[in-house]
C-alpha cells in the first residue's frame, strides 16, 4: 500500500471536538523517550489474532511442525514458522508459548465439553466455560476488556474488529458464530457478538475519515464532506428517536442496537481529526476489495475449482494489516481483534498451498501435519508482516511494537479428541500453541516458552497485564509468569 504524505498541523486544532488519541511526537516525550513528558505513560496497544486452524493432520502422530526444539531465545524455525525468519528475522520479536491446553469434558475453569468446532472456541476467546458446546461466548473477549480499560479517548474507543475471511463458502450450512471472535457488553448486563468488518475498503474509509489532505482545496472539500456526514447522521438519529416509541418491544431492542452503533459513528465523526504527524499518515486508498469467491461445496481433490472458496484472503489480510499498523501508529484505536480465518474454515487452501482442498479438509482428509503446516505458514507470514511493520515504525526511543502486545490464537492443538477418544486428532485442545509479539510492559520477546499445560487464556491475561489491564479473562486466573518477567 503506498503512503500519501500529509502535512503536519498544529496540535489542538479542532477544539470543540471530543478528545482523541494523537500520535506521539518527540516534543511530547521525556528525555529518555520512554514516557510522555509530565509523567504519563505512552499509549499501549493490544492485538488479538485468530486463525481457525489446528496444529496437525488427523491421525498423523507428528504433533506439529511449529513448536521449536529448543526453549529460550533464538529458537529454531520449523516448516510452519519459517516466515518468522523473514522480515529481517522478525523471530526476535515473536515468542512462542507451546504446551498449552484447554480442559474439555467440562472439567475446570474455561472448559468445553466434547463438540470441538463450536464448543472449544468460546473458552479460548473469553475464558468462560461452555458446558453445552454452544458457539457463543458468555463473557466479553480480551479485545473488549482492553478497549474498555484503555480505549477511552481514541477515535475507535471500542476497538477495531476485522475479518479477513469474508464468507463461509459452504452451501447447506451457516457459520453460526464461527465467524465471530469478539464479544462485547450490550450495556444491560448481557453479552453480544461483535462481528468484524469484512471489507478492507470500508475499513479503510472508516479509519482514515477526517484526515485532512494537504491541498487547501481538498482540505476544504474534506471539511464540507465531514459537515454533511454529521448533519445527515444527526437527522437520521432524530428519525430513529421519533420512530422508536411506535415500535414493538422486540423491534425496540433491535433498533436500539442500531442506534447505539449510529451513536458510536457520530462520536467518531465528532472526534478531532487524526493529525498526520511523525509516523502517522494516511495510506493511499487500496481500492475495491477482491471479489468474494463462490461456494466450494466442500470440494476437494480432482476437479477442484481453484476459483471457488477463496476471496483473495492473502490481499485482504495485507490490507487489514496496513490499517492495523496505522491505527496503532496514529493511536486511533488501542485494541484490535482480527480474524484471519473462521473457526472450521472452509476457505480454499489451494491458492497459497497448491493443495486442492479447503482448509478444514486439509486437516481431516489430507490429514498430514506437513499439509497443515503449509496453511499455518501462510497465515504466520501475514502476522509476521504486521509485527515487522510495527517494529520498523519508530515511537519514542523505540518502536510502536515496544508499546504493543500481540497475541495470535489458533483454534486447535493436536491430540485427544474427546468426542471419539482417538489420539492425534485436529479436534483437540491438547498441545496448543499461542504466539505473541511486542514488548509492551516488558513482555518477553523472541523466546520459546513451555506453557506447562496452562490455558491459552493465561497468555491473553499476560498480554492484558502488559498493556496495563490488571484483569483476568473469564474464569481463567493468572498469567504465564516467564512471559512477563
Amino acid at each position, binding site marked *: 500500500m503506498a503512503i500519501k504524505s500529509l502535512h503536519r498541523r498544529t496540535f489542538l486544532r479542532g477544539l470543540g471536538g471530543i478528545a482523541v488519541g494523537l500520535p506521539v511526537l518527540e516534543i511530547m516525550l521525556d528525555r529518555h523517550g520512554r514516557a510522555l513528558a509530565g509523567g504519563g505513560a505512552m499509549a499501549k496497544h493490544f492485538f488479538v489474532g485468530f486463525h481457525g486452524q489446528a496444529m496437525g493432520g488427523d491421525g498423523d502422530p507428528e504433533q506439529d511442525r511449529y513448536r521449536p526444539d529448543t526453549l529460550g531465545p533464538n529458537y529454531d524455525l520449523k516448516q510452519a514458522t519459517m516466515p518468522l525468519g523473514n522480515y529481517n528475522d522478525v523471530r526476535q520479536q515473536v515468542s512462542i508459548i507451546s504446551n498449552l491446553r484447554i480442559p474439555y469434558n467440562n472439567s475446570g475453569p474455561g472448559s468445553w465439553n466434547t463438540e470441538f468446532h463450536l464448543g472449544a472456541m468460546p473458552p479460548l476467546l473469553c475464558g468462560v466455560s461452555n458446558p453445552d458446546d454452544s458457539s457463543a461466548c458468555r463473557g466479553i473477549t480480551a479485545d473488549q476488556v482492553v478497549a474498555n480499560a484503555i480505549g477511552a479517548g481514541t477515535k475507535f474507543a471500542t476497538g477495531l474488529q476485522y475479518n479477513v475471511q469474508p464468507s463461509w463458502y459452504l452451501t447447506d450450512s451457516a457459520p453460526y458464530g464461527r465467524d465471530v471472535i469478539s464479544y462485547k457488553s450490550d450495556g444491560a448486563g448481557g453479552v453480544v457478538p461483535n462481528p468484524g468488518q469484512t471489507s478492507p475498503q470500508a475499513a479503510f474509509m472508516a479509519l482514515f475519515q477526517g484526515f485532512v489532505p494537504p491541498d487547501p482545496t481538498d482540505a476544504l472539500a474534506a471539511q464540507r464532506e465531514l459537515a454533511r456526514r454529521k448533519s445527515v447522521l444527526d437527522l437520521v438519529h432524530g428519525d430513529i428517536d421519533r420512530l422508536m416509541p411506535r415500535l414493538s418491544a422486540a423491534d425496540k431492542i433491535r433498533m436500539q442496537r442500531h442506534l447505539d452503533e449510529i451513536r458510536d459513528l457520530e462520536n467518531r465523526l465528532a472526534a478531532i481529526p487524526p493529525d498526520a504527524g511523525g509516523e502517522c499518515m494516511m495510506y493511499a486508498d487500496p481500492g475495491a476489495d477482491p471479489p468474494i469467491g463462490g461456494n466450494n461445496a*466442500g470440494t476437494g481433490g480432482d476437479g477442484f475449482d481453484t476459483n471457488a472458496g477463496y476471496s483473495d484472503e492473502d490481499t485482504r489480510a495485507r490490507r487489514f494489516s496496513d490499517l492495523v499498523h496505522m491505527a496503532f501508529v496514529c493511536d486511533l484505536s488501542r485494541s484490535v481483534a482480527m480474524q484471519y480465518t473462521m473457526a472450521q474454515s472452509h476457505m480454499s487452501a489451494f491458492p497459497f498451498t497448491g493443495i486442492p482442498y479447503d482448509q478444514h479438509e486439509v486437516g481431516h482428509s489430507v490429514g498430514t501435519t506437513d499439509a497443515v503446516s503449509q496453511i499455518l505458514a501462510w497465515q504466520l507470514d501475514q502476522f509476521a508482516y504486521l509485527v515487522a511493520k510495527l517494529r520498523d515504525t519508530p515511537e519514542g526511543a523505540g518502536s510502536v511494537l515496544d508499546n504493543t502486545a500481540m497475541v495470535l490464537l489458533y483454534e486447535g492443538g493436536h491430540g485427544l479428541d474427546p468426542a471419539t477418544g482417538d489420539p492425534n486428532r485436529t479436534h483437540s485442545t491438547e498441545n496448543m500453541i499461542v504466539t505473541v509479539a511486542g514488548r509492551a510492559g516488558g513482555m518477553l520477546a523472541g523466546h520459546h516458552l513451555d506453557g506447562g499445560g496452562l490455558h491459552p487464556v493465561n497468555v491473553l491475561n499476560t498480554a492484558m497485564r502488559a498493556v496495563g489491564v490488571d484483569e483476568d479473562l473469564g474464569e481463567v486466573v493468572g498469567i504465564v509468569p516467564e512471559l512477563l518477567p
Partner: protein
Amino acid sequence: MSRTCLAFTSLLVTLAGCYKGPPGASGDASADGTADGTASEGGSSGGTPEAPELGGVGQVGMRRLSVDEYDRTIADLLGDDTRPGATLLAEDVADPYDNQISNQQANRPLIEALEQLAGEITGRLLEDTARRDQVVGCQPAATGDEACMSEFTARFGRRALRRPLSDEEVARYVDLGLQFAADEDDFYAGVGVILRVFLQDPEFVYRVEVGTETDEPGVFRLSSFEVATRLSYFLWGTTPSDELLDRAEAGELATAEDVRAVAAEMIADERAMDRIDRFHSLWLGYYRLPHSAELTTAMRTETRMLLEKTIMQDQGDWRGMFSATGTFVNDFLAQHYGLPAPGSDAFSWVEYGDSGRAGLLSHGSFLSVAGKYGDTSPTQRGKIIRKRLFCQVIPPPPPDVNIDEPPPEVDSPCKIDRYNMSRIDGCSACHSLMDPVGFGLENYDQQGRFRTTDNGLPECVIEGSGEIDGQSFQGPAGLATLLAEEGLLDTCIVYQSYQFAMGHPVADDDQRYVDDLVTAFADGGYRFDELVLDLVGDEAFLYRREEEG
C-alpha cells in the same frame, strides 16, 4: 462404545414450534399504528379493526433489507445498477434464505457500510446529470428553490420510505437540504444530503411494520403501505413501485381479494420470475456454484428456463419440474452433459430420451451443491433431499461421532464399500436415511455429468440405484417418481415459500395459514403461481402479531 442413532425422521410438524422470536417483552401501548403526521389509513374506517376470523397471524418483526434487496432497491430508486451493497455490506447468511430475521442484528460493519454507501451512491448520482435530473424531477430556478426541493423530497421520500411523508417531515428534510444548498451555493448539494438521509433512514434500511391495533391483543392490522411493501419485497425482492404506492394510497389494497388481484398483475412481471428463481436457488443451494463463470451461467440458465416454462408459460403442476422429460441446453452445456447438441449458442429444449435424466434433479445446478471430500457425497445429497425437498429433520449425529471425518479406510477403493462399512455400527440408523438416497444419484458427478464408474476405476462400477423409505429407485428420473408418490414435496415447498416470504420458519402461530395453503396448493393442481397468490391473498397476510418476549 455403544451408539444409537434413533431413526426418527421428524416430519413437517417438527418445524412448527421450533421458532421463537428474539427476546423482548411484548406489548407496546404507545403503538398508534400511524406514521407521525401521515394520513391514517389501512382498511379501517374508525373503530378498532377486527383480527382475521381464521387466525393464522404470525409473529413478525422488522426486517432489514438483505444485500440483494438493498441492491435491487437502489437500482429501482436511483437507476444505479452497480450493485453497490454487495461490495461493502457483509454477506447475508444463507439459512437457507438470505432474509431471515434471526440473522439480521445490527452491528458496526453494517452501520459503517450503510453510511459509506449513502455517500458513494449519492456522489455517483450527482455526477450523472441525466440520471440526477430524473431522480430530482424538477429543474431548480435558483440555488435555494424551495418548491423544487420540497417536490423532490416528498416524491422521493415516499418511494424511499414506502409511505407518504407528512408536511412536517418534508419540511425537516428540506430545511437541511436548503441549508447545504446555500452553504455550498449548489442546489444539488442540498439534494445530496437529503438523499443520504433517506439511504440511512431506519424506515429505509428496515421494513418497519407498525399497523393498527385490532380487537385481538397483540395482533395489528397493517397499513396499506405496509402491505404494499410486504407484497413487493416478497414478489419482486425490491421496493414498491410508484404505481403500487399509488394503489395503496387509493385504497386498492384494502382487502385480501384486492391484494390477490394486484399480486396477479405483479407476478406476470419479469421481476417476479427473478424472485422465483432466487427463491429456488436459495432453497436448493445453487445460488452460488463452484464452477467457471461460463458453466455457472449455463447451469443457472437451464434451471431458470425450466422454472419459467413450468410456472409461467405452462402454468402447470410445479412438481412437473422434477419429472420433465427434457431440458434447456445450448451446445456448450449439451456437450458438457453428453446430450445431443441443439446446434446453437442459444438455449433450446432437448429431450432426455432414455438417458436416465429427468427434471431439476438432473440439472448441473442441483447436482453441484452437495459434495464432500473431493467427490459427490451420497450422504450430503441424501441430506439435502431430506431437508429441502421433504422438509425432514435429520437428527444430528451423536456427540461421539466425528462427522468431519471421511468414511473409514477399507480395503476397497470403491465408495459404496466404504459407505457400507460406515453403516455397520451405531451410525447406520441415521446414515440409512441419507446415503441410500444419495447413491441413487451416484451416476452423476459433481458437475452433473453422467459416469459409470467411481473415480474412473473400472472395478468400481456405479449401479446408480437408491432407496428411500423402503422403495428403490434409479437416478433422477426414478427419484422424481418417488417424490411425487411420497407426497411430501408439495407440502414442503409450501413451508419453504412461507419461510422465505415471512423471514422465519413456520411457527405455531402460522399453522392455520400454512395448513390452508397446503390444502389449496393440492386443490389447485400444484401451481406455484397460485401458491404465491394464495399466500399473499390470505387475510392473515394483512396482519402481524407482536413478538413474544
